[in-house]
């Protein structure tokens, strides 16, 4: 009983890690709390669902389309809404992204239509993997594998590619990076594009089996990225991944043992990410791997 729960939690956690990563990348590079992150997830998932199931195109084309669509919207938001506000209060920009989220989510929900959900034609369908007694959906295995690959690719890119180094430089020491000729605006645009791409991939795995498809409530899953990002420490890439995994496993285990935990009240699995987060923050106020802020007097 425990193994499937842990596996499921790992798979879910990998998806949350993708979401938390996208959120942290934007926060690190521009200090903006991106309230439109759920919208990016929905946009990516919507395009993938439409192109694969609606228009019947090959899945890889649909996936590419979804990733590009989310990245494009993220770039448009950064270029035309966030950048003109550069130098202004961060909280004002963050609330502005709230307006973007309202518009984008309203439109996607309208397009989902009265059926209430949009199916996606992914290659795994509802097929399962069997290993002895264990039965596990292929789509969940795919989620874990793909998310791990994407995260690894991202970490490698961050470490070794010139743009990755530039991004880290700008996050660690903006003044020196500027002196070295790294254009801050380009790096920030890149961060937003990455956030869109990561959100789209995460969105795909939130709408595959055992979900029936993209629903109006699918965006709510992106909210769980917030505590995941905090648990790991908001300025830590590694922390975002750790935080995502912790939240996924905790949620999955609590859901599985809900009958034994009923004294905590019903539906406690949706509160668990926040309870874990509060517990972590009590012990480590900057998250598990976040750097403690240093203050200049």
């Amino acid at each position, binding site marked *: 009983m425990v193994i499937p729960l842990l596996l499921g939690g790992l798979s879910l956690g990998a998806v949350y890690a993708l979401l938390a990563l996208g959120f942290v990348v934007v926060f690190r590079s521009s200090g903006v709390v991106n309230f439109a992150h759920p919208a990016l997830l929905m946009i990516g998932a919507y395009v993938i669902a439409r192109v694969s199931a609606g228009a019947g195109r090959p899945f890889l084309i649909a996936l590419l389309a979804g990733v590009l669509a989310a990245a494009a919207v993220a770039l448009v938001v950064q270029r035309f809404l966030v950048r003109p506000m550069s130098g202004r209060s961060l909280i*004002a920009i963050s609330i502005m992204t709230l307006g973007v989220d309202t518009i984008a989510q309203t439109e996607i929900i309208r397009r989902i239509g009265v059926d209430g959900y949009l199916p996606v034609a992914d290659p795994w369908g509802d097929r399962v993997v069997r290993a002895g007694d264990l039965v596990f959906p292929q789509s969940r295995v795919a989620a874990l594998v793909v998310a791990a690959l994407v995260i690894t690719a991202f970490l490698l890119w961050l470490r070794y590619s010139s743009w990755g180094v530039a991004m880290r430089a700008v996050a660690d020491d903006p003044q020196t990076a500027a002196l070295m000729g790294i254009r801050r605006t380009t790096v920030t645009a890149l961060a937003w594009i990455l956030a869109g791409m990561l959100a789209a991939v995460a969105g795909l795995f939130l709408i595959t089996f055992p979900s029936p498809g993209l629903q109006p409530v699918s965006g709510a899953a992106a909210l769980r990225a917030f505590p995941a990002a905090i648990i790991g420490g908001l300025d830590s890439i590694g922390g975002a991944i750790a935080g995502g995994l912790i939240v996924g496993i905790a949620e999955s285990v609590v859901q599985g043992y809900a009958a034994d935990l009923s004294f905590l009240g019903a539906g406690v699995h949706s509160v668990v990410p926040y309870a874990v987060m509060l517990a972590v923050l009590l012990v480590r106020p900057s998250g598990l791997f976040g750097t403690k802020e240093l203050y200049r007097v």
Partner: protein
Amino acid sequence: MSRRRLALAGAVAVAAAAPFLIDSFWLQQGLFAMAAAVGALGLTLLLGQAGQLSLGHSFFLAAGAYGYTFLASGAGPRAGGLGLSPYLAAPLAVLLAGLAGLLFSPIAARLRGIYLGIATLGLVFLGQHILANAPRLTGGDNGRSVPPLPGFDADPGGVRYLLNVEWGREQKLWYPFLAGLLLAYLVFQAIARSRTGRALRAVRDRELMAGIVGVPVTRFKAYAFLISSMYAGLGGVLVALAFRRVVPETFGITLSIEYLAMVVIGGLGIAGGAIAGAAFVACLPSVLERYSDLLPGLAAGPGDAGISAPVAGKFLYGAAVIAVLLIEPAGLAGLARRRPRRAPAPAATAPPATEHTPTDKEVSHP
């Protein structure tokens, strides 16, 4: 009286005349806006003056709303209550919310910036969980009805009239709400202009320096949480009275984010801004929905493929939020300040000490 006082008196006089001039829909919107404004004043004090980001405002609103409901309701078959007079229950609920804020403040003192924000968000989720799972206290998922203020409720005997205007619940409630808002506003200005206000702003801008200079930082942070949660408590009581029912669903993350939007759109740290922002966020969606069938080119009914009126209303609201902040990140108050000053009032009126300027840390580098 100074120009400022004159303007305030004028605004109050106009507001007091409102029930004679506008219909129930607008009065109802006004009640919602006033209830929201009281809560928003508390948040703008916490965030704008003291620099503490809180996404947990709806938790304290719930404390006030449910506190009042529990204290003022009689014990019934489905849920308990203390049966106190509503005039006693209301201030007690405010104190209860303040106590909750005080209890949370040690945790808040350990956290900074966005970490504090998201931690308070956790408070909201925990709060909703409790609200739904303690039916004897809260009525569970279905919530509870809110005891009305005696003397300010609909007349059971039939409709009454005052000066030829139908004098129902909305008209009567208008005045206690207005009084509550006025009180909240005046207290805010008093705090902001006092030494306490300066200390709060010192904590906001240069926390370490303030500590070195001798400001007891933790105590003032706790004070800020106490006051803002009391404001939220009063706001919660007003919300409960305006809706006549409390349900757990109302007091979630969406409400917290809405209050944050109110104070940012209105202009951080400024009392008038909080009120304007509250009116904007609380009323604009309903107003847009009400008049949305005036927009051309919309779908007529559910079978049509176009954009329906309520959806268009939501689009417009999101666009309005973006537009206000894009044009003036200091919000509506910032827009108001832009208007060229006439012949200046004598220098005796000090410029408002309630302005929030972005600090180094907060300026973005997109």
